[in-house]
């Protein structure tokens, strides 16, 4: 039964894939030729689903726009939308008392020394920014290439790290890897900055932190992958490691000799003072020699067709770095590894292997012989047959909305006015914006739900008995109250459109069903909510609207994006 279903799905997706491939390849040549424009307008439910995957939440306006111009044209609009991003904050004095002397308002330290200004900007961007797809892609990259403010607490450092992800969200993954490797916030976070060659006098070895995590978490993972993201097996059925401890040590030696860029006007030295503004530099002495860089040959990743599997001895540190990044970037794992993570961030926790393979193929070759084109990858993810349609059938399809996405979906659905100060309210749901616990991110992309028979559900790692109740209480506050101060500050939903419909409970539920559940509200669910609406005094239209919105938003049917 299951096999039959899968076979049908495969046939179906194969046909659709051909259609899509034709459309996309044509799109490469002539951007006006698109799938959407060559067919009838997309179904409303599919449009809402698409916007759940591609934005911080559907709105009446965005639904109408996609219905008007179609998926492909809308994506083109998004690719060209003006960037929001983050302000490149000035670096405040190290001495807080100098910047914020006694008598300064309490906002002084908050704005100069904490993540607050960036967190506010995050919500302002998410609620009002036009570059929604870029924001979602950049945030998905942040969850892969993690710097956490629990170590890097300076907002001027974090803003530049975040902007690399923003600026390259539709760029090339090799640029992401290189710029992140030399980003001083990352250098400080994972100890590449001031990492020195082996010191025979003290017996100190090069630091392995960045070497290990750039492989394990940022690019290839621990085991060799098939093109569809599944683990390769040897003859005995065992997974095949991508690297050994020797490889880690090879990369650790490669990543030696780099320090902060000298501060403006200062002479460079080994171990320059903190500089979070400019990329790290390879330290050179007065003779131009990179004397803190380990000069012996280094063994890097070995794979079929391996680029630079060994770095020659006595190479310049800059060349070592370029070759090492090529060695990583051309590893066959990168496509399926990154594609699977991006699919899980945007569409579904349990994609079919074929879906992963189709996206990974785009990573490997965007159609114009370019590897690592993230724009092509994002487009492939969102326009794939497994992402589109009005009613996906696999029981394990979809994803639990992570707290940030859950919050922005609720706020955007009801045109919230907001000053952006929402971080503390979402932290209570288990996700602390820009401050994941460790380089292992807010939650593991591979987390399996206990007792589920192997269903992957990354967001369930932070979905506990307390945070699940906190989500419902978040809805309570959003619907029956507000976050923070009264308007024009704070954050308030606008329920007017729903109140206007509340005299006709079925019409109200039709609207909520469309905008929040893309038409999937079951008859049983409708009956439950109608009963609750009808228990409210018929003249209290606001309370009736609130009751309906509360129940939809609090339901697991809504918490899970399908």
């Amino acid at each position, binding site marked *: 039964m299951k096999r039959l279903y899968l076979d049908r799905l495969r046939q179906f997706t194969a046909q659709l894939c051909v259609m899509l491939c034709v459309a996309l390849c044509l799109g490469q040549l002539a951007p006006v030729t698109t799938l959407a424009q060559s067919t009838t307008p997309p179904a409303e439910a599919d449009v809402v689903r698409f916007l759940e995957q591609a934005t911080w939440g559907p709105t009446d306006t965005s639904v109408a726009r996609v219905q008007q111009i179609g998926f492909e044209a809308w994506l083109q609009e998004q690719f060209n939308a003006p960037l929001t991003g983050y302000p490149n904050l000035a670096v405040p004095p190290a001495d807080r008392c100098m910047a914020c002397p006694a008598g300064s308002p309490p906002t002084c330290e908050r704005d100069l020394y904490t993540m607050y200004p960036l967190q506010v900007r995050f919500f302002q961007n998410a609620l009002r920014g036009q570059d929604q797809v870029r924001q979602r892609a950049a945030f998905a990259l942040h969850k892969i290439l993690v710097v956490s403010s629990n170590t890097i607490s300076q907002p001027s450092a974090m803003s530049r790290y975040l902007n690399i992800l923003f600026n390259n969200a539709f760029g090339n993954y090799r640029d992401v890897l290189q710029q992140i490797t030399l980003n001083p916030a990352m250098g400080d976070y994972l*100890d590449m900055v001031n*990492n020195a060659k082996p010191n025979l*006098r*003290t017996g*100190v*070895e090069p630091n*392995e*932190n960045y070497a*290990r995590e750039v492989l394990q978490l940022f690019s290839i993972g*621990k085991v060799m992958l098939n093109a569809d993201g599944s683990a390769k097996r040897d003859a005995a059925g065992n997974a095949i490691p991508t690297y050994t*401890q020797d490889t*880690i040590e090879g990369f650790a030696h490669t990543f030696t000799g780099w320090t902060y860029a000298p501060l403006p006007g200062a002479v460079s030295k080994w171990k320059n003072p903190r500089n979070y503004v400019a990329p790290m530099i390879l330290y050179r002495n007065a003779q131009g020699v990179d004397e803190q860089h380990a000069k012996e040959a280094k063994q890097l990743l070995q794979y079929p067709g391996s680029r630079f599997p060994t770095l020659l001895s006595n190479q310049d540190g800059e060349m070592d770095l370029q070759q090492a990044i090529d060695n990583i970037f051309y590893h066959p794992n990168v496509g399926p590894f990154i594609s699977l993570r991006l699919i899980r961030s945007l569409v579904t926790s349990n994609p079919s292997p074929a879906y992963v393979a189709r996206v990974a193929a785009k990573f490997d070759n965007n159609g114009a012989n370019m590897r690592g084109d993230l724009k092509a990858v994002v487009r492939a993810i969102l326009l794939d047959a497994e992402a589109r349609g009005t009613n996906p059938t696999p029981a394990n*399809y*979809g994803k*639990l909305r992570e707290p940030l996405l859950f919050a922005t979906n609720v706020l955007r659905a009801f045109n919230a006015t907001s000053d952006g100060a929402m971080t503390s309210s979402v932290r209570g749901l*288990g996700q602390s914006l820009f401050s994941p616990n*460790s380089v292992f991110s807010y939650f*593991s992309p591979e987390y*399996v*739900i*206990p*007792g*589920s*028979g*192997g*269903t992957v559900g990354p967001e*369930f790692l*932070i*979905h*506990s*008995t*307390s*945070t*699940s*109740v*906190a*989500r*419902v*209480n978040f809805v309570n*506050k959003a619907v*029956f109250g507000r976050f923070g101060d009264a308007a024009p500050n704070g954050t308030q939903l606008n329920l007017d459109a729903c109140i206007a419909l509340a005299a006709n409970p079925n019409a109200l539920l039709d609207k909520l069903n469309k905008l929040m559940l893309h038409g999937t509200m*079951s008859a049983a*669910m409708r009956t*439950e*909510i109608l*009963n*609750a609406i*009808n*228990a*409210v*005094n018929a003249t209290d239209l606001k309370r009736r609207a609130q*009751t309906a919105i*509360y*129940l939809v938003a*609090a*339901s*697991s*049917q809504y918490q*899970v994006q*399908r």
Partner: protein
Amino acid sequence: MNNSRRNFLRTTGCGLSAAAALSSFAKLETIANAAMQEKATDYKALVCIFLFGGNDANNMVIPFTNYAAYNTVRGSNSGINIPQANLRQINAPSHGAMFGLHPNMPDMQTLYNQQKLAVLCNAGTLVRPLTKSDFQGGAPRPGNLFSHDDQQLQMQTSLSQGPGNGATGWGGRTADQTNSLNGGSFFPMEISLSGQAMFLNGVTQRPLVPGSGNGGSALAGFSDSTGNRARYQALRNLMNQDNNLTLVGASNNVLRSGIDNINTLNQALNGVTLTTPFPGSGLGNQLRQIAQIIKARASIGLQRQIFFASMGGYDTHSGQLASHNGLFTELSQAMKAFYDATVELNIANNVTSFTLSDFGRTFQPAAGAGTDHAWGSHHLIMGGGVRGGDFYGRFPNLALGGPDDTNREGRWIPTTSVDQYGATLAQWFGLPATAVAGVFPNLVNFGVRNLGFVV
């Protein structure tokens, strides 16, 4: 049983009463049916303190008599040296030598000298006992050594082959096999003060994860009115609508347990106070909450409980000395306060606390005055039932490239497995001898099944 039923009825009288009681009565029936086994007459609790990041226990427990072996590698030029004069000296009769605890652990020294604290040497993940020549010859070893997430899971699951899909933790499996000692109380016997933890996932048992404070925030916004009663009933009913969708069902399960149990816990903890002062640190707050829950054990009707608490920050790749000063201060002070609280509650002999961590760290220092990921590590076991004041297992030879080193950076091959460590604790807790092999499937590969550090 009577106790938990009475408590259940009491806690439903909280404003939501009609709907809450209605929806939970079906559950009570199930519980009554399951309550066939003998309820224990004594109380016991296990408290796991997980040190996330991989604790460098090489600087937590240092040879004093043989300080030269330490100083050869971690001397004053190493960036991570702890001077001999600053060590908190303790005697290890099993090793015929003096050792020193980290200078910021005076409270642990006190408990050790009172024989309420033991040290387990060089424990970690293993498939079977492993010598250096075995290791170099390619003998079976745990998957993905030196990787944080894998080693955390293996330490929590006791499945060094790699836990795989549907894995359970050894705490959870122990709970599966001992929950009958609770006589059918429906309240979860496992509580995590530190989010979801694989350690506590059993086949049937799942942890409650309260919020901070007491039980955590209960459902808000249901002051009594006709409309609110109907809305609450609808919310409950929607939690039963999975539509055969896996993720929706999983989300409903979590929320249902939260709504059912957090209220109960808050009621049980109402007015429960301790006279023992706790430090206001992260671990201090978690352990204080655990002590309060233990004090309230009668009203939630439990005789066996397993807790999970944790600290982060142990991934000391750089700046280790300064980091450790804070970390070990917090760990030592919080553990001591917790022990004192169990004395206050007159159950010190019934509560055993123990540390786990991802792995130990390289004995050779890394650039930036830190250390890198390694393998075997030392652990602390605390409680009135602990045969403290001594070391268990074998302290490693600290020579780089020596007999305990995988290679040349000081990654110790464990000489005691987490399976042996866990099985010792679980047997004390009440895991029947017949169930030990099922909970710790690799234990069969090790000669000693009980390390004897707790009775």
